[in-house]
């Protein structure tokens, strides 16, 4: 499903970052751990195709993202990748419902065109009530985003991630989805993410410095603070089964 090789990224200023090779199968869950500034969000944006690597490849469903044109990469991301942020952004002027459907609507064409985008937005519209119901945001769909609580915004962001692609996303990427939440909310969001990914068969990659998530992910990678590239490049990748797993 998701595979990276020799991935490196270089900011205009500061050291270049190199990342461990990753392989995540459909339905699997990977936790990327690390302290602030170690490149977790950069890795997530590379996986999402929002950043172009200095070298190396990111393949999703056999497609090398860096080989796609920017426009094709945008379309691909919209169809296959769901994104969840710690402080999820919303289009302030649109209702929660319209925000959830941003991705399928991006590919919608004129009604007469009969293109795939129309079928996709139709499917998304059909799936919306079920997903909204399951995440407990059905009564909030007509509200504006600023009227939602922090928890409701998180759930709406997860719902939006699930509505990408014709039958749901192949990959859900979450950036610090629980870091700012208390224990109870953290558990709720974690459960929602895992349940959503499990139900849709999507691979789930979460980047966080929140250790509370560790027991719930079978794959883990821990990034160390940024190191220069080359022979001195170091990172510690640890892949091991969770200890004391809790039910998802």
């Amino acid at each position, binding site marked *: 499903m998701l595979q990276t090789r020799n991935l490196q990224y270089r900011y205009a200023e500061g050291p270049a970052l190199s990342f461990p090779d990753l392989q995540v199968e459909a339905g699997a869950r990977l936790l990327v751990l690390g302290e602030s500034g170690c490149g977790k969000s950069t890795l997530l944006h590379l996986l999402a195709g929002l950043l172009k690597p200095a070298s190396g490849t990111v393949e999703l469903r056999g497609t090398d993202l860096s080989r796609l044109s920017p426009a094709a990469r945008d379309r691909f991301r919209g169809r296959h990748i769901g*994104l969840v942020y710690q402080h999820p952004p919303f*289009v302030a002027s649109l209702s929660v419902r319209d925000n959830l459907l941003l991705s399928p609507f991006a590919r*919608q064409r004129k009604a007469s065109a009969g293109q795939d985008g129309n079928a996709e937005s139709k499917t998304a519209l059909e799936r919306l009530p079920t997903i909204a119901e399951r995440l407990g945001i059905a009564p909030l769909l007509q509200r504006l985003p600023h009227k939602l609580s922090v928890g409701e915004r998180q759930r709406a962001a997860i719902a939006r991630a699930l509505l990408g692609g014709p039958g749901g996303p192949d990959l859900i990427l979450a950036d610090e989805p629980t870091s700012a939440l208390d224990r109870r909310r953290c558990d709720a969001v974690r459960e929602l993410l895992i349940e959503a990914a499990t139900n849709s068969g999507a691979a789930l990659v979460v980047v966080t410095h929140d250790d509370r998530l560790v027991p719930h992910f079978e794959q883990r990678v821990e990034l160390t603070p940024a190191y220069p590239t080359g022979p001195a490049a170091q990172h510690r990748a640890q892949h091991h089964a969770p200890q004391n797993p809790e039910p998802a």
Partner: protein
Amino acid sequence: MSPARWLHMVWRNLWHRRLGALVNLILLALGTGIISLLLLLQGQVEQKFQNDLRGVDLVIGAKGSPLQLVLSAVYQIDAPTGNVPIAAVKSILQGPMVGGAIPLAYGDSYRGYRIVGTSTTFTDRFETDLAAGRNWSAPLEVVLGAGVARATGLELGAHFHGSHGVAGGEAHAHHDFTVVGILEASNSVLDQLILTDPASVWAVHESAVPERSVQWENPSEWPDSLDLTAVLVQFRGRMGLFQLPRAVNATPGLQAALPSVEVNRLIGLLGIGTTTLQVVGAGITIMAGISVFLALFLRLRERRRELALLRAMGYHPWALFALLLGEGLLLAGIGAVLGLVLSRLGLVLVNRLAAGEFHWSFTAEPVPQEGLLVLGVLALGVLAALIPALMAMRVDVAKALAEE
């Protein structure tokens, strides 16, 4: 993104910042409205001046301001300069350079509508027929212009008294006018006049009325002993333009005014005011454009995450460009439409003022220049949104999404 979805998002974005958008719209509508109103008025005023000028090459009247003479004799919107004895003008009017002459005796009114003593050929200039009744054939018989009949409600056979002057002066209670005809509407000064035989005017002012009926079409028939307020003259040939004014001005107490010259001068004077107002309108419109630009530009920073989110959701950079451009375009479009509505409302106000003062009315029919005005405003909207739209395309998605 479908066009309907694009429009929905553009509209929602404007609605979300409706207070700011309202300020943009007010400025756009005000600027467009002023320019549109001036276009409507300018065209119609010029057309009205030209229409009423038909068949008049020269106006002969008492010494004074030539513009006043033309305004009072041709357009009936100013006080007369005085009277001229028929004996003084008769020899000039019988000369070979005169193709036609129409006598005018005026100074009285009924409910603000001027009573004009003239020949029946006066109406021929406007190619207007009677809608009802017949032409006057005896003193104190009158024919009403269509506007007068509509405003006063006078019908055939009705009687009324005239008043001295046009501002409702002393009533001439001993002389009853009788309505014998009503003219068709001609959209000219004719609509606002009450026409009668010059002998009626003399009768009301208790001058000596000629005993016999006068053939007013032929100046040689005009009675020497009486006065006229003005004479409208048509040249027989081009030479009249050079020789007649000189001949008239050489006669003591008379002046010749060339209406085309005076009207051009008047339009020129009005043009200065019109141009000034147009510049003000254009200035307000440009300010509106700048306000649209500032609104979009200043909001870019707070919208960075939104724009980045759209990119992350699969929206092409050109889709973001189209969204921002759409906001400028939609604002300009609504502003232009509101401006056109505003100009029509302004026209209603102008009509009320013009109806009271000059009995003029202007139509709200669009003029071709308004199409250009709307296109100009739309272009301004696009221009105002261009830089913000281009900046929206270049938003650093990863960086913006990483912000809190």
